Each structure stands twice: as C-alpha cells, then as structure tokens.
C-alpha cells in the first residue's frame, strides 16, 4: 500500500482502542496526503495532547507533539517562520475547543495557512471520558454522572465567525468525503478547518449506550446529511456535512511579506 510510505510502521499496531474513529482519520489523512503527493520533507504535523494528538507520531512527516491545547500556537511559529512548509494540525475536541479555544479563534482570525483537523469524539478520551465542550446537553460522562447541562459549540459557526476562510465538516463514516475535504483544506491558502465526527467507543459510546464502533458509525450515517439536502428540511436536527466556507482572503504569511517590504522602504 503506497500510503504506508507516509506512516511510521514500526509504531503499529497503534495505541488507539479497537474501533476508535481516530484511526479512520489517520487513514483518511494519509490517503489525502498521498493523493496530493506532497513531499514529506515539506510537511509538518503539529498536535497537542489527547488520544487524537497521538496521530502525529504515526505519520512520517516532521512531527511536533506539543502540550495540551496549544498546537495551533506552536504551528503558527512553524508556519510564519518557514512559510513554505505545509502545516497540518489535528486536534481533539477538548484540545481544539476547550483549553485550546483561544488559539483556535486567533489562528482563524489571522487566516494563517494552517490546516486544522478537529477530531470530535465529544469527550476527553485520553483522560478517561469526561465531558467536553462538544458533548452537548444530556450526555453522560465520568464528570457528568447526572448528565451534562453544557451546550456544545458549533465548531463550524465558531470557525466561521472567527474568520477562517475554509470551513468544512464530515464524519469518519464518510471516508471518501473525509479525504477529499482534507485535501481541499490542505490546498486552501488560508486557515482551514475540517471538523470530523469520530467515535470513542471506549468512553463516549459505552457511557451513552451507543453500542460499539460499528453502531456509532451508523449513527454518523443516520444523523448527518450533505449540505443543502432536502432531508434537513424534514428533520432539522440532522447535522450537515460539506464545505461551509471557502473564500479567498489575504493569507497571514503573505501579508507579512508586505510588512517586510514596507519596513525596507521606510
């Protein structure tokens, strides 16, 4: 399999639980990169801490496994310092949107050319299944024995409002869309966000009686539709998949070149 060129086989089998959706994200990411045929030496993957964040160790790119929630800040340093590098930042929902929420909105605001993948399993997998800002109301978690009262963020809306110039959503059930969207996000010149619903059968699934990985994948199938689908009209609770924002806006590193130009003129 040519995708194996992009992974570090010696660390397989990986540490994720059987049926963990994060493996499917890895699968999709590697296929996307392979199809884009990006030079591995020009690819940097930057992650934080979480089950999801362990993805950086499995791909044969330059890999930077940082601290919880701050991956985008590290990535900003990498990218602005050496703009020719492709920088991909996979994050857990807690990593990206709980502790890391500020870096998320600021990276979006700057529109710096980084690809952010939010691997949203609606829980803190790594620490054992606490609720996250993506759990939503009415969910059981080890820190919500009486079920949650916290609203969830809408990651797409948040990214849009903060200024991201590419925003998309899909699930690990929709593997073709998954790799397509990752490809588009990588190619897009600006800050791009792909929210990916991923299953944590070990904690979220078990606590919320959603069954095993296969059952959870089926929920992704049933509870989502393509943007603009008629089904959404009949059932507004369906979550849309696809590209929500795709626009051209000045990219941060390019804008910085102009600062240099202005400074040299001055």
């Amino acid at each position, binding site marked *: *399999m040519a*995708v*194996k060129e992009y*992974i570090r086989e010696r660390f*397989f*089998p*990986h540490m*994720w*639980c*059987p*049926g*963990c*959706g*994060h*493996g*499917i994200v*890895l*699968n*999709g990411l*590697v*296929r996307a990169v392979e199809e884009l045929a990006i030079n591995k030496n020009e690819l940097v993957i930057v992650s934080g801490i979480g089950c999801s964040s362990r993805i950086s160790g499995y791909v044969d790119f330059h890999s930077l496994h940082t601290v919880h929630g701050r991956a985008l800040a590290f990535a900003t340093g990498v990218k602005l310092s050496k703009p020719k590098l492709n920088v991909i930042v996979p994050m857990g929902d807690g990593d990206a949107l709980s502790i890391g929420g500020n870096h998320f909105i600021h990276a979006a605001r700057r529109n710096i050319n980084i690809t952010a993948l939010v691997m949203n399993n609606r829980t803190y997998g790594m620490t054992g299944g606490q609720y996250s800002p993506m759990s939503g109301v009415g969910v059981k978690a080890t820190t919500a024995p009486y079920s949650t009262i916290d609203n969830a963020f809408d990651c797409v809306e948040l990214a849009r409002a903060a200024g991201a110039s590419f925003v998309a959503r899909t699930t*690990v*059930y929709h*593997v*073709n869309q998954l*790799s397509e969207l990752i490809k588009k996000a990588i190619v897009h010149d600006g800050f791009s966000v792909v929210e990916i619903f991923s299953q944590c059968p070990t904690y979220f699934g078990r606590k919320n009686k959603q069954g*095993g*990985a*296969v059952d959870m*994948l089926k929920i992704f199938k049933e509870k989502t539709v393509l943007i603009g689908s008629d089904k959404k009209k009949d059932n507004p609770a369906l979550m849309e998949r696809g590209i929500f924002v795709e626009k051209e806006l000045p990219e941060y590193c390019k804008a910085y070149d102009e600062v240099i130009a202005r400074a040299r003129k001055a």
Partner: protein
Amino acid sequence: MSKKKLKDHLINRDWCKGCGICVAMCPKDVLVLDGDEKAMASHPEKCIACRQCEKMCPDLAIEVITEDAHGKEE
C-alpha cells in the same frame, strides 16, 4: 482508469484489532472475524474491490490489492 479487479486482501493480523468495522461496512459481506477476532475474507469472490474496508479500517490493517482488466497489478 480501467476497471479494477480484486487480486487479494492483505490483512495485517498484527495490526487488526478485531473491531469489526470492515466486516459491517463491506457492502458485499466479504469479510468476517475469525476465531482470533481478526478480519478475514471469507468470500473474496464476492468482493467488488470498492476499498471501503481499506479506507474505514482504523488500524490501517487492510489493503485491497487489485489488478486492472489487463492484469496489471497496482
């Protein structure tokens, strides 16, 4: 691209964790979990080489080897 024909399922038994996703998602019921809870192709002849199993495996444990109509491996 010419139409692909299945040549083989490469299933890495060291990597497979027996989650059953490939089994459930295969549109043609090609795959099963064996006694060791590892995926195996029990009906390879039904396979349409759609690669769904390969793409959905969280453990990157399946590779679908195809050859095109002219017998070239890929």
